[in-house]
């Protein structure tokens, strides 16, 4: 499925920026080697305690680690464990001891400490029952000044925390503070952070703007307040666009920013501008591959009533990134309606592709489309297309979709779905010869394998419902010859 629009942007921002350098007061900027070191310690999202110890013993040639290092790393594991189990109290207790890593005599670790402490500490303070906004503010302000290289990042996360608690004004103030903060050299990573901070400020302004917009829509045009509000709306949009536009030019994943920016551009009728932003966001190769970028573009083009071919070309890329996306069914419809034969073929591929994913197995529309389209393809004498698709799936689809278990549960939960699936199963599992009987759909319908699967469905319902089984079906089942061409579905 697609990435949620409310993607945690701060993390994606980090992934783009990389680990920013940490340095201490009175210490020069760290070398590249040190950066590698710190990212080993804190950059990876996963934690392998055994690997960590292994790496450390290797690094110092098997020499015994100092007990300080041993106990603090044990302390870190205890904190992580406590966080995992939501034992905030215990985590705070261990945290109390973990602060001493700020004074670690190992300079690598000392430099990495503020960030680790900030991450763990803010997590604890976010959930701890005794914590409150003031506690968090104090903590954030302290941490900002420990490793000054973290100042901007912490400010930003601090603002997000305040946002989470609905303190919009405070958040805005924090962002403004961070924006004007100047200390030491300007580095490129800091540049991006400042852009991000500005963009967040822009996002907050967008929020105010959209509130105003809603107000505006409620007002009568002749209302005396209308022009004042309208003016206000305009001002906001101008400020916001300045704040956001800088950021979204830098490669990265900026979904919420792009979305709100485009919304404002559209509101003021700057369609070309909006399209340019979206096209750039989706197609610029420097940007990381991002399905949402294509989705936004597609939705925009759809709103603009763009020609089908254009829509198809956008969705084609999305299909390559996320073949299971729900827009794929729309894509299929577009392809089906297209005049080109290659599009028709692609339409079949897309449907099969959607159903390859476990999350889509119960999507009745997909099954309905597939049932219809396979039949249509067969009748359109494109047996090869179906064969091509089926070839790679015949090993696993039967147990994936058409197992006894699914028959049973589908029939119970959604009879319509079961019927669609049964139909497809009949077509796909049946003898290939029957595919050719294009003019006699009844024959296809009556194919013994379809019936076999239906019967499984029926039986699974128990004795009470057995009467509902069409007698004709049973008759057909009895007389049909189960020849070797049919690989039996594994029955539990």
């Amino acid at each position, binding site marked *: 499925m697609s990435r949620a629009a409310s993607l945690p942007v701060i993390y994606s921002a980090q992934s783009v920026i990389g680990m920013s350098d940490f340095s*201490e*007061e*009175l210490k020069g900027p760290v070398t590249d080697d040190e950066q590698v070191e710190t990212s080993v310690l804190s950059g990876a999202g996963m934690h392998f305690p055994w690997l960590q110890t292994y790496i450390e013993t290797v690094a110092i040639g098997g020499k015994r680690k*100092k*007990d*300080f*290092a041993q*106990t*603090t790393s*044990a*302390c870190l594991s*205890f904190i992580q464990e406590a966080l995992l189990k939501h034992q*905030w*109290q215990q985590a*705070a*207790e*261990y*945290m*109390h*001891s973990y*602060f*001493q890593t*700020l*004074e670690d*005599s190992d300079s690598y670790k000392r430099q990495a400490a503020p960030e680790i*402490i900030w991450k763990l*500490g803010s997590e*604890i*303070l976010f959930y*701890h029952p*005794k*914590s409150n906004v003031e*506690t968090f503010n*104090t*903590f954030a302000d*302290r941490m900002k*000044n*420990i490793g000054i290289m973290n100042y901007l990042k912490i400010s930003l996360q601090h603002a997000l925390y305040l946002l989470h608690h609905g303190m919009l004004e405070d958040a805005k103030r924090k962002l403004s503070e961070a924006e004007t903060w100047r200390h030491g050299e300007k580095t490129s990573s800091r540049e991006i952070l400042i852009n991000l901070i500005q963009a967040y400020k822009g996002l907050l302004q967008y929020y105010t703007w959209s509130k105003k917009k809603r107000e505006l829509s409620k007002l009568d045009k002749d209302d005396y307040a209308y022009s004042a509000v309208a003016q206000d709306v305009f001002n906001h949009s101008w400020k916001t666009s300045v704040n956001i536009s800088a950021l979204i030019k830098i490669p990265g994943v900026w979904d919420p920013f792009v979305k709100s920016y485009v919304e404002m551009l559209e509101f003021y009728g700057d369609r070309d501008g909006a399209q340019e932003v979206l096209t750039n966001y989706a197609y610029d190769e420097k940007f990381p591959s991002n399905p949402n970028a294509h989705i936004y573009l597609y939705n925009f083009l759809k709103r603009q009533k763009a020609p089908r071919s254009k829509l198809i070309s956008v969705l084609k890329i999305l299909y390559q990134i996320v073949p299971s996306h729900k827009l794929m069914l729309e894509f299929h419809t577009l392809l089906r309606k297209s005049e080109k034969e290659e599009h028709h073929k692609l339409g079949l591929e897309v449907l099969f592709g959607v159903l390859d994913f476990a999350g889509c197995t119960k999507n009745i529309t997909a099954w309905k489309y597939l049932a219809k389209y396979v039949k249509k393809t067969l009748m359109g004498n494109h047996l090869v297309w179906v064969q091509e698709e089926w070839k790679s799936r015949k090993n696993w689809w039967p147990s994936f979709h058409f197992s006894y278990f699914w028959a049973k549960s589908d029939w119970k939960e959604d009879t319509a779905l079961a019927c669609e699936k049964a139909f497809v199963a009949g077509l796909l599992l049946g003898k290939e010869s029957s595919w050719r009987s294009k003019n006699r759909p009844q024959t296809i319908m009556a194919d013994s394998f379809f019936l076999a699967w239906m019967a499984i469905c029926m039986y699974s319902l128990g004795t009470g419902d057995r009467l509902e089984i069409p007698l004709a079906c049973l008759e057909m089942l009895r007389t049909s010859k189960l020849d070797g061409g049919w690989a039996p579905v594994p029955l539990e």
Partner: protein
Amino acid sequence: MRGFAAAQAHGILSPGLAFPAGGLLPPLPEAALATRVTGPGGGNCRGAAMDLEEAEEFKERCTQCEAVSWGLTDEGKYYCTSCHNVTERSKEVINSDIIPNAQIKALNRGLKRKNNSEKGWDWYVCEGFQHILYQQAEALKNLGVGPELKNDVLHNFWKRYLQKSKQAYCKNPVYTTGRKPTVLEDNLSHSDWASEPELPSDVNSPFLESGMESQSDVHTRKSLRISKALQSETSVCSGSLDGVEYSQRKEKGLVKMTVPQTLAFCYLSLLWQREAITLSDLLRFVEEDHIPYINAFQHFPEQMKLYGRDRGIFGTESWPNYDDIYKKTIEVATFLDLPRFPDITEDCYLHPNILCMKYLMEVNLPDEMHSLTCHVVKMTGMGEADFLTFDPIAKVAKTVKYDVQAVAVIVVVLKLLFLLDDNLEWSLSNLAEKHNEKNKKDKPWFNFRKWYQIMKKAFDEKKQNWEEARAKYLWKSEKPLYYSYVDKPVAYKKREMVVNLQKQFSTLVDSTPTAGKKSPSSFQFNWTEEDTERTCFHGHSLQGVLKEKGQSLLTKNSLYWLSTQKFCRCYCTHVTTYEESNYSLSYQFILNLFSFLLRIKASLLHEEVSLVEKELFKKKYSVTKKKSKSKKRRR
């Protein structure tokens, strides 16, 4: 008695340095160890060449010793370099005829003085260690060790160390031996030391009588003072005067003081006094903060500043390690050329029979096992005073790891009784269980399985607590150590921030106060008959695992396996290796349990078990290398 005689016979020691055994020497004034000794002109006394030159103009005789040999203190007063008497006369007054110059000089000195007070006292690395030793001795006294340990034994060991390492009590203290002639010569020609009169070996010097300080300590300071001049020329920094030199000092055969070494001194004194504290106890007390060790420097007087090189000398970020301290103890004892220690006899705590009893109680094993451990001790000859007594001047200086050895004996006895092959111990347990069910009134038979279950639980809990406590240990001192004066504000700022953060988070912690510092105890487990949940096995009988044969008792189990079949004969330090997975689970458990108690590695205990077995099955080892299949023992 014996030690004293031996020391005398050796003829190395001056009478004042004789080793007390039974309080032969009057205890030295506490002040000698307690406080940092400040001589006249004390910490501010600077032996810089300039001051001495200036002092030459002053020709009066000293009122105390009649010598004409003056130095200038920082206050600009004259002090006698031979007896350290400070006059009331000051430089400025004398030189009043050349006023402008004097003023400039006074100004200079004024600045210097201010700088100096900011930098604290002049002090030497060995003084720092002396202070730590003092604290440790005090802590040991508070733990119930006799006061002689501090006043006589440890102090004398320390003095002997200073002498042996040529830092004091000798004709040519290390810093005047011309190790660095180019620098030294220059200073020496003007300094007091060239004409330094030899110290009278007479103990009854006026200083000792005054009770303010011991003669020896003055000497220590004086002999080292010269390096101050060096210090001012080199820019590498340290708070102590000789920190830089000290860390560079490398001589063959010299045992340099380190923080772990202080524990070696403590242990040597404990051993000398035959106190009821084993090495593992000592180290555990250190870990539990009953004995100053980590950050011991933070209790130095305010004026003793530490930074730069001192950080490497006095900063510790590890707890002491058993093997390491053990080796250091031997090293120090050999270096000090100590005579044979007082005998460890059967009434000493360190004797295996007593230690075995203690550990049997500790791990909740039946008292009856004690007679078996005694038997093993007797058979192996490990109870002999000659075996147990530490003799550093013997051909191969080696001492016994009393605690490890006692525990190893218990492990051997457990192996004799239960074989510990993951099989026999359980079938014997079944027998005991059946018997106990039938005869509820009798003294119960010892049930290994039940014991295992209870011990496993208690051990796991203890270990968990221990690990948690370790993870929460606060290593950093209130006095941060920094590299140089430039770093000082940063270090202090960091410290302050850490303290603030800790304060903030401590409000989030449960308000119930955590149990305060554990009071020190030689026991880590307590087993009482009253506790119903945790069965106490002390009174259980071994009848189930022994059988009578005529007059004697035999173990039902007639098999035995050796922990090590082949000892390592190469020149490596270990005699055997311990690959956990090669051994039965019960054996692993028992090793883990005991090694946790002693805070040592299981492999160390395994080694000791093998050594005990080597003595016990000497014949088997010499006759055949095949695994000893049967072993019957009389009781």
